[in-house]
C-alpha cells in the first residue's frame, strides 16, 4: 500500500486534465449562479480532484529507482513489488497474530501458575482435614485395641498388680475367691458332720455310762438287800457284824444316790448334746445347701461373664479388622493425595520448558517479523533461503541474534526418556 500523498504525486501529471474535466461543467453554468458560489466551486475543484485520484484511481506503477542495478524489466519489478506488497500485508498480519499469541501464552502461563497455586491450597486444606480425621480415628482405634489387648491376654500372663488385671483375669479372680468361699463352707459342713459324729459317739458313751449306772444301782440295791439279810441273820449273835452290815447298807444307799446324781447330770449333758446336735445338724445342712448353691451360682455367673468377655473380644477383633481396613484406605488416600504434587510438577514441566519455549519462539517470530518489516520498507528481502531448520533471527537492542530450534537444542525436560524404569523403588 502506498500513501495518498505518494499516489497524488504519482498522478500529478494528470491533475490539470482532471481539473479541466471537472471545471468544464462549472464553466457552462458559471454565469447562471452568484459569483460567490462560482468562487466556492472553483476553490473546491482541487479538493475534488485529489479525492477522485486517491479513492477512484488505481494504484499507479512505481517508477524505477535511480540506484536499481538488477537489470530487471519494469514488468518483473512491478510483479515483485506486488509480491512484496502481499508479503508486507502477510507480515503485518503475522505480527499482529504473534503479538496476540504472545499475550495469550503469557495469560496461559499466568493461568497455569494460578491453577497450581489453587490446587496446592485446596489439597493442603484437604490434607489437613484428612490428617485430623485420621489422627482421631487412630486414637479411637488405639483405645479399642487397648481394650482388645486387655481382653485377649493369654492365660499365664496375669500380672500381679490388681490395677493391671484384665477382664478375664478379674473374672477368674472373682471365681477363685467365690469357689474358695464355697469350699470353706463345704469344709465347715464336713467339720460339722464330724462334730456330729463325735457327739453321736459321746451320746453312745453316755448311754453306756447310763447302763453302767443302772448296773451300779442294781448292784447297790442288791448289796443293800444282802447287807439287810445279813443283819437280820446275825441279829443278836455278833453286834460287830451287824454294824458292818449296816455300814454296807448305808454305803449302798450312798452309791445309789450318787448314781442317781450322776444319771441326772448325764441326762442334762445328753439333753444339751441333743440340742447342740440338732443345731449343728441344721447349720450343717444350711451351710451345705448354701455352699452348693453359691458354687452353682458362681459357676453360672463366671460362665456368663466369660461368655460376655468372648463376645467383647469378638467385637473388638472385628473393630481391629475394620481398623486394618481403615489403615489400607488411609494408605490409598495417601497415594491419591500425592496427585497434587505430581500434577504440579507436570504443569511446571509443561509451563517451564514447553510454554516458555513456545513463548520464546513467538517472541522470536514477532521480533523477526518486525525486523523483516523494517527491512522490507527499505529493500526487498530474499526469503528463499529460509526453511524450518534455519535459526530464528532475533533483534534485541538493535543487535541480531539467533535462537536454536528444538531440533538443534536440548530435548524438553518433560519428555519421557527411553529406557525409563517401571520400578517404583530401587535401592542402590
Amino acid at each position, binding site marked *: 500500500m502506498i500513501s495518498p500523498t505518494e499516489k497524488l504525486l504519482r498522478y500529478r501529471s494528470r491533475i490539470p486534465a482532471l481539473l479541466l474535466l471537472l471545471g468544464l461543467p462549472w464553466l457552462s453554468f458559471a454565469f447562471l449562479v452568484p459569483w460567490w458560489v462560482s468562487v466556492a466551486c472553483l476553490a473546491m475543484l482541487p479538493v475534488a480532484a485529489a479525492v477522485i485520484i486517491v479513492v477512484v484511481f488505481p494504484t499507479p506503477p512505481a517508477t524505477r529507482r535511480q540506484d536499481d542495478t538488477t537489470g530487471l524489466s519494469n514488468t518483473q519489478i512491478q510483479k515483485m513489488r506486488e509480491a512484496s506488497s502481499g508479503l508486507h500485508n502477510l507480515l503485518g498480519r503475522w505480527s499482529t497474530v504473534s503479538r496476540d499469541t504472545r499475550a495469550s501464552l503469557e495469560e496461559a502461563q499466568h493461568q497455569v501458575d494460578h491453577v497450581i497455586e489453587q490446587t496446592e491450597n485446596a489439597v*493442603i486444606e484437604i490434607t489437613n482435614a484428612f490428617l485430623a480425621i485420621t489422627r482421631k480415628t487412630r486414637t479411637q482405634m488405639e483405645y479399642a485395641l487397648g481394650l482388645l489387648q486387655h481382653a485377649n491376654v493369654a492365660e499365664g500372663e496375669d500380672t500381679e498388680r490388681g490395677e493391671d488385671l484384665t477382664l478375664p483375669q478379674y473374672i477368674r479372680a472373682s471365681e477363685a475367691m467365690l469357689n474358695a468361699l464355697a469350699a470353706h463352707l463345704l469344709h465347715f459342713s464336713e467339720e460339722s458332720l464330724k462334730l456330729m459324729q463325735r457327739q453321736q459317739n459321746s451320746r453312745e458313751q453316755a448311754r453306756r455310762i447310763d447302763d453302767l449306772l443302772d448296773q451300779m444301782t442294781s448292784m447297790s440295791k442288791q448289796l443293800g438287800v444282802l447287807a439287810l439279810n445279813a443283819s437280820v441273820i446275825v441279829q443278836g449273835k455278833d453286834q460287830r457284824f451287824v454294824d458292818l452290815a449296816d455300814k454296807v447298807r448305808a454305803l449302798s444307799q450312798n452309791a445309789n444316790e450318787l448314781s442317781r446324781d450322776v444319771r441326772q447330770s448325764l441326762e442334762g449333758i445328753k439333753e444339751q448334746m441333743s440340742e447342740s446336735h440338732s443345731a449343728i445338724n441344721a447349720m450343717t445342712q444350711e451351710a451345705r445347701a448354701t455352699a452348693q448353691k453359691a458354687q452353682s451360682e458362681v459357676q453360672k455367673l463366671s460362665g456368663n461373664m466369660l461368655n460376655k468377655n468372648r463376645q467383647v473380644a469378638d467385637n473388638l477383633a472385628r473393630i481391629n479388622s475394620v481398623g486394618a481396613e481403615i489403615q489400607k484406605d488411609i494408605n490409598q488416600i495417601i497415594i491419591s493425595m500425592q496427585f497434587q504434587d505430581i500434577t504440579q510438577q507436570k504443569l511446571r514441566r509443561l509451563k517451564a520448558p514447553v510454554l516458555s519455549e513456545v513463548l520464546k519462539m513467538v517472541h522470536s517470530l514477532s521480533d523477526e517479523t518486525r525486523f523483516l518489516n523494517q527491512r522490507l520498507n527499505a529493500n526487498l528481502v530474499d526469503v528463499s533461503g529460509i526453511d524450518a531448520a534455519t535459526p530464528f533471527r532475533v533483534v534485541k537492542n538493535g543487535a541480531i541474534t539467533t535462537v536454536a530450534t528444538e531440533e538443534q537444542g536440548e530435548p524438553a525436560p518433560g519428555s519421557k526418556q527411553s529406557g525409563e*524404569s517401571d520400578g517404583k523403588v*530401587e*535401592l*542402590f
Partner: protein
Amino acid sequence: MALILAVDDSTTMRQMVSFTLTNAGHEVLEAQNGDEAIKLAKSNKFDLIITDVNMPGMNGIELVRALRAMPECKFTPVLMLTTEGGADMKQQGKAAGATGWIVKPFNPEVLLSTLKKVLD
C-alpha cells in the same frame, strides 16, 4: 525409632511423608528446600534423609552432593522420592551418593518397608 529429615517443596508431600513415618513411630523434621535441609542436617544427627529431586533452587541431586560433602552426613542414608523415573536421573542420583530411589506416588507400606531395609 529413627530421626528422619523429609525434604520436599510440596507441603502436601511433606505432610504425607511425615504422617506416614510419624505413625510408624519415627520422629520427622521437614525442610522445604535444599538450603533448609542443609541447615537442619548441620544441627541434627539424622538416621535417614528423604528428598525430592525437582525443587526450586538446589535440586535433590545437588542436595545429595552437598550432604555427602558434609562429614556429619557422609554415611547417612538418603532416599530420593520423586516423580522422576528415568534411568539417567537415577544414575545421576546414584553417582551423587543417593542410597535409593522411590517413584511417586509412594505407598506408605512400601515406604516403611524400604525404610526398614535401609535402616537395618
